[in-house]
């Protein structure tokens, strides 16, 4: 069935809640309203206020309560209304969720999912546009996924709910309704930690995820017209990252371009670039390259500012052209 990402998430939540009584949802406006993006629409009526809990503005408590409930056997799905507001729960996520299993030698665990919309391009300005993956990718004990297609949205959400550890499930808000795709009705899982080659190519590899995957694919079209054959890899999992697929692609193309919307310095491109330079160095025929948001404190509200900030297909294609010509 052809579905949007938001529909897919909603349907997957519904079927997982139907299958497993331990699964419940906790977050701001997730109940009666169905979420500010309508990801949970209808679930409150179907499952009732105990399984779809409208929380007060308490990100710390939303995450902290979910951690406690997960420890004693429930499967919480905490929604943070915008990724930008997860910061006040930072301590709970990195000091507790990520470290609980390790600090107790596996005695207490934290099987929970944190869903949150991230990313720019919808005039959300500094505090409704942030990419948060790089910050959390530094914390072993967590897992992070960022689906770019409806198919992966379902497969990764199911994998996240089934995972024995805390998973940050990042939803690029610009993809919610703009990206549609085939979603099988059957149960399937997209394993956490596996990337996917979305388009094969020989001249350079473009590594991307979320909304930027679609910009990268559009860039590959532009490049094709210039007779540059770009391979495009959807990372999908950001912690852990599928290094094997990345290295394999670099072995083939000898050129690596990393794309993300997040700011440049210490964005996820840093780790990807460094790993390639460390473990696939001899495969490189050119410097690694990054196309990312600039090192600014945030995405401006003003449209010109927003466009200036965000990478897009043309910016990616321009960089790729330079890289291919190196």
């Amino acid at each position, binding site marked *: 069935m052809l579905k949007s990402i938001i529909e897919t998430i909603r349907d997957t939540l519904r079927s997982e809640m139907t299958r497993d009584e331990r699964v419940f949802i906790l977050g*701001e*406006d997730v*109940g*009666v*309203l*169905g979420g*500010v993006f309508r990801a949970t629409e209808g679930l409150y009526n179907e499952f009732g206020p105990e399984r779809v809990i*409208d*929380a*007060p*503005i*308490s*990100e*710390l*408590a939303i995450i902290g309560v979910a951690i406690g409930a997960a420890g004693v056997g429930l499967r919480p799905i905490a929604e943070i209304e915008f990724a*930008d*507001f997860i*910061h*006040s729960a930072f301590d709970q996520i990195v000091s507790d969720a990520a470290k609980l299993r390790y600090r107790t030698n596996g005695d207490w665990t934290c099987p929970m999912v944190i869903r949150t919309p991230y990313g720019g391009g919808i*005039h*959300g*300005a*500094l*505090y*409704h546009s942030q990419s948060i993956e790089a910050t959390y990718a530094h914390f072993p004990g967590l897992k992070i996924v960022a689906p770019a297609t409806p198919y992966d949205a379902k497969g990764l959400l199911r994998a996240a709910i089934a995972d024995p550890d805390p998973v940050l499930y990042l939803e690029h808000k610009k993809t919610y309704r703009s990206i549609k795709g085939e979603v099988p009705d059957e149960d399937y899982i997209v394993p956490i930690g596996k990337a996917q080659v979305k388009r094969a190519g020989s001249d350079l590899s473009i590594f991307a995820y979320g909304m930027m995957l679609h910009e990268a694919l559009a860039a590959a079209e532009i490049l094709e017209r210039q007779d540059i054959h770009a391979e495009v890899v959807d990372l999908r999992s950001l912690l852990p990252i599928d290094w094997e697929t990345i290295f394999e692609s670099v072995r083939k193309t000898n050129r690596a371009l990393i794309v993300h919307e997040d700011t440049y310095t210490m964005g996820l491109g840093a780790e990807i670039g460094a790993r390639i330079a460390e473990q696939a160095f001899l495969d490189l025929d050119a410097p690694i390259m990054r196309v990312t948001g*600039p*090192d*600014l*404190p*945030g995405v*401006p*509200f*003003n*449209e*010109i*500012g927003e*466009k*200036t*900030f965000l990478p897009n297909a043309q910016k990616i294609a321009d960089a790729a052209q330079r890289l291919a010509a190196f």
Partner: protein
Amino acid sequence: MNLQTFPSPAITDIETLELAMYRAMLLARRLDERMWALNRQGHGHFAVSCAGHEATGAGYAFALDVTRDYLAPQHRDLSALLVWGLTPRDVLCHYLGKAADPAGAGRQMYAHWGSRRLRIYSLSSVMSGHVPHAVGIALASKYRREDTVTWCGFGDGSSSKGDVHESMNFAAIHKLPVVFCCENNGFAISVPQSKQMAVENVADRAAGYGFPGVVVDGMNPLAVYETARAAIERARRGDGPTLIEAKVYRYLPHTSNDDDTRYRTREEVERARERDPLKTFRAQLYAEQLLDEKSETALENEIRAAVDDAADFALNAPELSAADTFKQVYGDGSG
């Protein structure tokens, strides 16, 4: 009411005060209406309504000393900000995210106030994030032996955040000259008060920190004024903070992206309209013969002209440039 002095130099008697309040409330409401109309016409991406909060804003703004006190406002405090010196042009440039936006040259969404010149501290989108800043400003006042007061507004929803707890506790310990004002409109977007807290009054929290908490009808500007005056004087005397809870109602959806029919009935909204401060206070001014049809028409005309002018100005004002997008990361010229 027992009013001897007026903190605003322009106000010398209660009649002037009432008219000035009504003017601020009406201007705020009309600007608000204009922004929502512009939004529906495709101008601007994001409107946040002040409708229902105007009496609280007008009430407290006149109770402060506009020449020296500080504001860390709630996002719906447009009426207060107009009293405080923001012009309709400022407001609409902020709404449209134009380069002339005084809050940040179009970098932030609407209702993220700020003006250093006017001593309005900057808001982010993060609910309650500004509350500790207000306490820090009050700490600076005490540190420098200044008798300035800082006003800090936030919503009922925002009161749930740990920021508010830590800030109130800190302010109490140091008896800082800050007034906390919770503008309780009963909702955090769709979440009703009953799902946000198990108490009727946020003001009850104050006792747990060791300062007074008081509930006031936030739809009555004079009641807010009086309550605010007492709290401000207490703060100025060095006796520490007060928590005021102003009971208000938000008439429009949460923002222009919200659909409030999903979580509250039209009857509820209509019932709340009976308390509309622009209705009730207008009636009071008529009864007190401070307003009549002629003067009201003049006032509406004056305000319409100001709003028209502001909309014209803002719609034609320059955008943030791509080059300016890269400015003001650091103050030493490095970015």
